[in-house]
C-alpha cells in the first residue's frame, strides 16, 4: 500500500472523530438500529481482517504471531485502564481522556499499518471500519470534554488531534515492516490482539444495545466471512 495514500485515507478516518464530537455534543441521537448495524459491520470487517493478519503472521513465525497477539491485547487493556491511573487522573480539564484516546488510536494505527502490509484491500477495509468506529469514539470524547468546560469546536479539534496518531502509527508500522521483516509476524499478531480487544470491549456492547443480539450476530458473521473469504489470497 502506498504510504502517502495510507496517511491521507487514514487521516480522513481520523477526522471522523471530530465529526462524532460535533454530533455527540449536540446530543445528536447517536443510537438506533442503523448505527448498531454500522458498528456491527465494522466489527465484522475488523474480525475478518484480524483473521487475515493472524493467518499471515502464523504462516511466518507462529510463536511470534501468538506472542504479538498477547502483547496487542495487553497494550489495549493498559491504555484503557490509563485514565483511571492515579498519576494521570491528576491531569487538568479531562486531558487524561485525551491522552488515553491518543494512545488508543496509536495502537489502532498499528493494526491499520499491519493490515496495510498485507495489501491495499486490507488496509482500505480496516481504515473504512475505523472511520465508522471513530465517529462513536469522537462522540464519547467530545461529550466528556464539553462536560469539563471545553467549547464544542475546540473539543472537536482536540478529538481529531488525538486521533491523528492513528495515521502516523499506521505509516510508521508500514515502513518498519518494510525495513525489518523480522518484526512482521510480531506486528501482525499485535494487530490481531488489538482488533479483537476493540471488537469485544468497545464495538459489540454498543452494537448490541443499539440493534439487539440476533441481527448484530448475523451482520458481524456475514461481514467477517466476506473479508476472511477475500483474504485467502493475501499470502
Amino acid at each position: 500500500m502506498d504510504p502517502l495514500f495510507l496517511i491521507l485515507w487514514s487521516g480522513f478516518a481520523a477526522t471522523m472523530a471530530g465529526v462524532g464530537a460535533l454530533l455527540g455534543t449536540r446530543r445528536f441521537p447517536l443510537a438506533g438500529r442503523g448505527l448498531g448495524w454500522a458498528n456491527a459491520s465494522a466489527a465484522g470487517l475488523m474480525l475478518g481482517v484480524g483473521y487475515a493478519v493472524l493467518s499471515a503472521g502464523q504462516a511466518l513465525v507462529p510463536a511470534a504471531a501468538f506472542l504479538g497477539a498477547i502483547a496487542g491485547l495487553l497494550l489495549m487493556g493498559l491504555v484503557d485502564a490509563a485514565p483511571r491511573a492515579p498519576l494521570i487522573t491528576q491531569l487538568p480539564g479531562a486531558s487524561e481522556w485525551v491522552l488515553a484516546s491518543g494512545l488508543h488510536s496509536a495502537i489502532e494505527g498499528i493494526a491499520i499499518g499491519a493490515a496495510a502490509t498485507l495489501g491495499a484491500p486490507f488496509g482500505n477495509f480496516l481504515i473504512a471500519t475505523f472511520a465508522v468506529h471513530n465517529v462513536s469514539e469522537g462522540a464519547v470524547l467530545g461529550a466528556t470534554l464539553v462536560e469539563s468546560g471545553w467549547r464544542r469546536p475546540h473539543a472537536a479539534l482536540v478529538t481529531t488531534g488525538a486521533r491523528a496518531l492513528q495515521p502516523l502509527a499506521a505509516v510508521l508500522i508500514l515502513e518498519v515492516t518494510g525495513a525489518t521483516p523480522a518484526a512482521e509476524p510480531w506486528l501482525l499478531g499485535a494487530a490481531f490482539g488489538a482488533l479483537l480487544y476493540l471488537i469485544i470491549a468497545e464495538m459489540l456492547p454498543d452494537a448490541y444495545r443499539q440493534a439487539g443480539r440476533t441481527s448484530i450476530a448475523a451482520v458481524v458473521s456475514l461481514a467477517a466471512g466476506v473479508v476472511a473469504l477475500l483474504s485467502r489470497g493475501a499470502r
Partner: protein
Amino acid sequence: MTAAAATHASLQLVFLCALITAIATGLGALPFLFVKKLSPRRAAQANALAAGLMLGASLGLLHEGVAAGAGQTFLGAGLGVGFIVITQRLLGDHEPEFGRISGADARRMLLMVVVMTVHSFAEGVAVGVSFGGGMALAITITVALAIHNIPEGLAITAVLRPRGISLLACAGWSVFSSLPQPIMAIPAYLLVEQVRGALPYGLGFAAGAMVYMVLVELLPEAYGEIAGRQIAMLVGLTTVAMLMFQQYI
C-alpha cells in the same frame, strides 16, 4: 487373517480411537471440581472463557478449511450460521427443558450442546480420513484430537455448570457432544476419498455455527454482568491460548 478380517479389525481400531477422543472431552469438566459456587459474575467470566475457547477453535477450523477449499469452507460457514438461526427459532417456539431447568437458560444450554455436537461430526470425519493416510498419521491425529477435545469439554462445562448442572452430568454432556466422532469416523474411513472433498464444508459449518453461537448467546450474556474490558481480556487470552494449543499440540 483374511482380508475381510483385517478390514474388520481396522474398523474396530478406528472406532476405538475415535471413542477415546470422545471420552477425553469429559476431562474438560475437571477444572470445575475446584470451583464450589458460581456467582453471576463468575458465570459471566465462564461464558467469556467458553466464548474465547470457541472463537479460537473456530479460527483453527477456518484455517484448516481454507487450506482445503476456501469457497466451500465459507459456504459451509454460512450454512452453519443458518443452522443455528433455525435451531434457535425452533427452540423459541417451544419451552425447552434441560434436566430440571427451563426457559432461556435451558435454551442456551441446549444450543451449546447442539452446536458442540454438530461440530464433532467434522472432527469424526477427520479421524476417519486420517486412517486413510496410514497408522502413524492416524495415531497422531487421534492423540491430538483427544487433547484438543479437553478445552471443548471445558467450554461446555463453563456454560452448563453455572446453571446448576452437576459436574458428572457436565462431563457426560461433554462426552455426548463428541459421540459423533466414533459414529462418523467409520464411514469417513470407508469412503475416504468422497468424504475428503466434503471436509471443508464440514469445517466451515462447525466454525460458522460456533462463531454465531458466541455472538448471539455467550457474549451478550457476559456483557450483562461484567465490564467489556474484562470480557475482552478473557476472550482474547483464551482465544490465543486455544490457537497456540491447536498449533503446537
